[in-house]
């Protein structure tokens, strides 16, 4: 499953205030993938990391976090109220 490539964000306020962003998530794929694969191994090798239960959970959940990130493709939230709008979409 391919993770989302682009994050679209549009925020429009009252009047002429508008923000439109296209965030290239595909640039983060290598970093996130490497972290998701390396962190569980690092957690197993480091007793000190295992002592921190919160960090340990984050490390062991690396592959699942990657799958959750990949599953976000297609998610869309569009809220409008008159001229105001908040739009977030994962492509």
């Amino acid at each position, binding site marked *: 499953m391919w993770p989302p490539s682009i994050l679209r964000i549009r925020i429009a306020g009252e009047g002429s205030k508008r923000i439109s962003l296209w965030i290239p998530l595909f640039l983060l794929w290598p970093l996130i993938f490497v972290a998701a694969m390396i962190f569980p191994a690092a957690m197993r090798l480091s007793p000190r990391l295992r002592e921190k239960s919160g960090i340990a*959970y984050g490390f062991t959940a690396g592959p*699942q*976090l990657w799958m959750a990130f990949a599953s976000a493709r297609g998610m869309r939230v*569009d809220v*409008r109220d*008159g001229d105001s709008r908040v739009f977030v979409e994962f492509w």
Partner: protein
Amino acid sequence: MGNDKARILEMLKAGKVSVDEAEQLLDALDQRPASDQAPAIPAEAPSAGAGRKCRFLRVLVKGDGNETVDVRVPMQLLRAGVKLGALMPPEARAKLDTALGEKGMHFDLANLTPETVEEFVEAMSELSVNIAGDDGETVRVFCE
């Protein structure tokens, strides 16, 4: 807008929607302003039907004014969330169950298994909720 009406009539002709559902969809279209770019009517029938895979859960809410909410959530995200929750440390899960219980939600997260979620997703494929208020508010929940 004409395309949306034609699409609704085609779905009615093909038997994908009932007369009541088509009427509600047409009413919702008529209540939309001409310049409004609110969410369009989905190309497929609101109810995915048996045998059709549910890929997204869609929620459309239209208020009595110009408020609209359009949310589309991938079902795969639900599956991934359940798998992520399965990795939760037992201590954390117990605390979460306790906190939910204090709010009146006596729900055991351990019962939320991938098999249960698959059954839920399969059941959701036939889900179609259409609520229309007296002041023109509409709420639609369906799978696509």
